[in-house]
């Protein structure tokens, strides 16, 4: 079966290696037969060696290939094994070590695309032969390529000033790297700053977080940009240009000393839907909370009397340093960075979406974030656990798990933190009020250091656990003793009965969700979201903080729900990865770029407008177009559009792809 293409290269010496992958491939594909077939039937296409081996990626497997390259004088290698996304680099590096250009090695997937998805051994074997033939015909048309080396700008952009972003920024800054830490809100801290206690140690959230916030705020290597948003990203790994909109605070940071007189004098009081989760009030000029970093307040334009009516200016009058500036405008900053870390976090599930739980309708149904503020010593009640009236202490409290999680109607995933958060609430309620606490759970999930011990502690403290999904929370009394109470109707799946439990207070342990703008942000940075909306890691286990886009990294809850220790660990991990790139000084990029053969270019300029990266420029004098390899990302759209066939897409040339199609079609029963 010789290729019919006219552009046939001089005969190559091709080595074929078919992997068993234990039984992963060999269980469904007759691997030995595939190797035998390739050795006999693809002889005319240049195959001189064809072997199968149990684990091609093992060092013995790699050495086998290297030995053949040297001893048999192989010029090309095709490995039929797993996905190139997994082991392409492994085999290319192995070939390079034996002196071969790594881009003359192809990995074709007979595992993910064949053995794992098919059951009929004869058909899977036939398909494997076809896939392999495609690879053999393609590899003969491969050209030696050199990876592009691009310098890495040492500065880093960290988006998101929650605990993950702070951790990443501090790790890098302490290592001497300059970080732009961009936070949408007026202060660092994120959700963690709102929490009262942290499980399972019950240490105060603010006490452990605020020193970190201060370090990040004061660090000479961190440019802190709060009340700011990234509006533009251009460039590529090593050389990004970031546009940041620093929103007007209407308070001059160079003059403000954070004394707080403006807030004190401001006559306008508004419900604080942000930091206090709607339970408390703030002024129209405010800092989110006393330990906010930076200390400078912001003026809330929508509520400020001056911005509404044109009069007031009380803050300006009383400011001792003259820092209030009603004419301040948004500032647009442009900064060059080499790497980007996204730690933009999550939002909590909106409990109003489950109307039968009564949140927003029944006063004494609270969300988890509301309870955090309620129990916080710095919160609206000074840490006193009360009903919505701010006075009455509850005698019985029901805590409902999995609100918005593990539910096909809302989110199918487990939010990971709700069980532990609920246990923490139970402990706090018991400690502060002595109330009877019921926990309504589906499964108790406590897989963390000292987590299950905390569950046992709650059991010992007398918290009552009801295993079952809550159907409804209602204030309609049906039975004696239910009057004036909230009744939780739930199935107790351990005794197989429906139960009605009257309580004074209900806490909904709301799950975590991707932020509303997660998709937009992903698009801005050129990365992808899962169906749920969490950002997709390059490899779920081995590359948990990398994305498919070079130079853009993810960490913390933006990847998926996780607790504080896991978020902090990812913050450090992502910093280590970025630090590694910076230290290398430059990075190798796949040489999949387009080039235009000036002799064949007719100067029609069709390609010019097709490139979204402005990589193609037109030379008026010579009347030809040219690709700037530094800007080209290698998508190949121009290659397929060129009417003169003057553009070559290296690594994915017409010859390679057409030959591969021919190979794929060469085997048919």
């Amino acid at each position, binding site marked *: 079966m010789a290729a*019919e293409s006219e552009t046939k290269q001089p005969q190559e010496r091709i080595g074929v290696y078919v992997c068993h992958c234990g039984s992963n491939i060999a269980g469904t594909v007759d691997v030995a037969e595939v190797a035998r077939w390739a050795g006999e039937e693809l002889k005319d296409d240049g195959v001189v060696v064809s072997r199968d081996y149990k684990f091609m990626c093992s060092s013995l497997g790699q050495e086998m290939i290297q030995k053949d390259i040297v001893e048999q004088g192989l010029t090309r290698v095709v490995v039929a094994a797993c*996905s*190139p*996304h997994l082991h392409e680099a492994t085999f290319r590096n192995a070939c390079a070590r034996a002196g071969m250009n790594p881009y003359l090695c192809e990995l074709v*997937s007979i*595992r*993910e*695309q*064949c053995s*794992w*998805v*098919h*059951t*009929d051994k004869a*058909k*899977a074997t*036939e*398909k494997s032969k*076809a*896939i392999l033939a*495609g690879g053999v015909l393609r590899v003969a048309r491969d050209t030696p390529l050199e990876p592009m080396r691009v310098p890495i700008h040492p500065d880093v952009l960290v988006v998101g000033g929650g605990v993950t972003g702070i951790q990443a920024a501090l790790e890098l800054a302490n290592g001497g790297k300059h970080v732009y830490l961009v936070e949408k809100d007026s202060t660092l801290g994120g959700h963690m700053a709102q929490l009262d206690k942290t499980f399972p140690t019950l240490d105060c959230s603010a006490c452990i977080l605020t020193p970190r916030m201060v370090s990040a705020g004061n660090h000479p290597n961190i440019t802190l940009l709060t009340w700011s948003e990234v509006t533009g990203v251009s460039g590529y790994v090593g050389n990004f240009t970031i546009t940041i909109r620093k929103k007007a605070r209407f308070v001059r940071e160079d003059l403000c000393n954070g004394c707080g007189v403006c807030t004190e004098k401001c006559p306008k009081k508004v419900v604080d839907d942000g930091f206090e989760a709607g339970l408390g009030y703030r002024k129209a000029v405010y800092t989110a909370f006393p330990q906010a970093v930076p200390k400078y307040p912001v003026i809330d334009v929508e509520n400020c009397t001056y911005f509404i009516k044109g009069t007031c200016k009380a803050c300006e009058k009383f400011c001792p340093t003259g820092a209030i500036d009603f004419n301040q405008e948004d500032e647009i900053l442009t900064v060059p960075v080499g790497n980007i870390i996204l730690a933009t976090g999550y939002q909590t599930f909106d409990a109003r979406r489950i109307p039968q739980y009564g949140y927003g309708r029944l006063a004494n149904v609270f969300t988890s974030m509301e309870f955090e503020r309620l129990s916080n010593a710095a919160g609206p009640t000074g840490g006193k656990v009360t009903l919505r009236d701010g006075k009455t202490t509850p005698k019985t409290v029901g805590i409902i798990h999995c609100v918005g999680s593990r539910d096909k109607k809302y989110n199918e995933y487990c939010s990971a933190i709700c069980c532990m958060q609920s246990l923490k609430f139970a402990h706090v309620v018991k400690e502060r009020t002595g109330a009877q606490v019921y926990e309504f759970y589906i499964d108790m999930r406590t897989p963390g250091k000292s987590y299950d011990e905390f569950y046992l502690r709650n059991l010992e403290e007398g918290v009552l656990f009801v295993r079952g999904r809550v159907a409804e929370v209602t204030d309609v009394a049906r039975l004696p003793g239910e009057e004036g109470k909230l009744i939780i109707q739930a199935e107790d799946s351990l005794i197989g009965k429906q139960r009605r439990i009257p309580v004074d207070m209900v806490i909904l342990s709301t799950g975590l969700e991707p932020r509303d703008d997660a998709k937009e942000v992903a*698009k801005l940075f*050129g990365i*992808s*979201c*899962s*169906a749920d909306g969490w950002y*997709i890691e390059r490899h779920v286990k081995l590359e948990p903080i990398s994305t*498919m*886009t070079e130079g853009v990294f993810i960490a913390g809850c933006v990847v998926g729900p996780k607790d504080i220790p896991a978020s902090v660990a990812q913050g450090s991990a992502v910093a280590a990865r970025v630090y590694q790139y910076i230290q290398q000084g430059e990075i190798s990029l796949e040489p*999949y770029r387009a080039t235009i053969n000036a002799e064949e270019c007719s100067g029609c300029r069709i390609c010019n407008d*097709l490139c*979204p*990266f402005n990589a193609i420029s037109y030379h008026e004098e010579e009347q030809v177009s040219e690709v700037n390899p530094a800007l080209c*990302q*290698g*998508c*190949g*759209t121009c*290659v*397929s*559009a060129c009417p003169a066939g003057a553009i070559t*897409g290296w*690594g*994915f040339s*017409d010859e390679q*792809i*057409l030959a*591969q*199609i*021919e190979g*794929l*079609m*060469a085997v*048919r*029963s």
Partner: protein
Amino acid sequence: MSDPLDGKTFEPVIIGFTCNWCSYRAADMAGMARMKYPPNIRLVRVMCSGRLDPTFIFKAFASGADGVMVTGCHPGDCHYIEQNYKLMRRFILMQRTLEQMGIEPGRLKLTWASAAEGAKFSEEVTNMVEEVRRLGPLNWPSAETMDEWMAKEPSIETEERP
């Protein structure tokens, strides 16, 4: 007329084009999750669906494929910003051209699959295989048969009128 299939079920061969960032990863994901789909599809990886040259599709049909499946990132999710939109434009042209050549529209299909949509990928492949199976073999003349035909002397047979 004799049955070319000789009583066997017709097993179509479909060439699938996948982009490196979304649909190829969807195929990988289907594999990792061991989702099953028929073995009638054979995949070609390109960096972006925008790389799809109409020639590739004609080549697939000319090499004996009974169907061609083109896949890429969802509109708006392209790794290269917007190149899948450029594929969309070409796709419509290719579909029209193929129709004019007498190829049923069901033999060329465009599907979006994100890196997370392994299930969708396997489902779409299954549906397409069944659809092409219903359409039957394409039987496009191969390059060799074309050569044979071209080499033949043109002859017009005339019938004697009674």
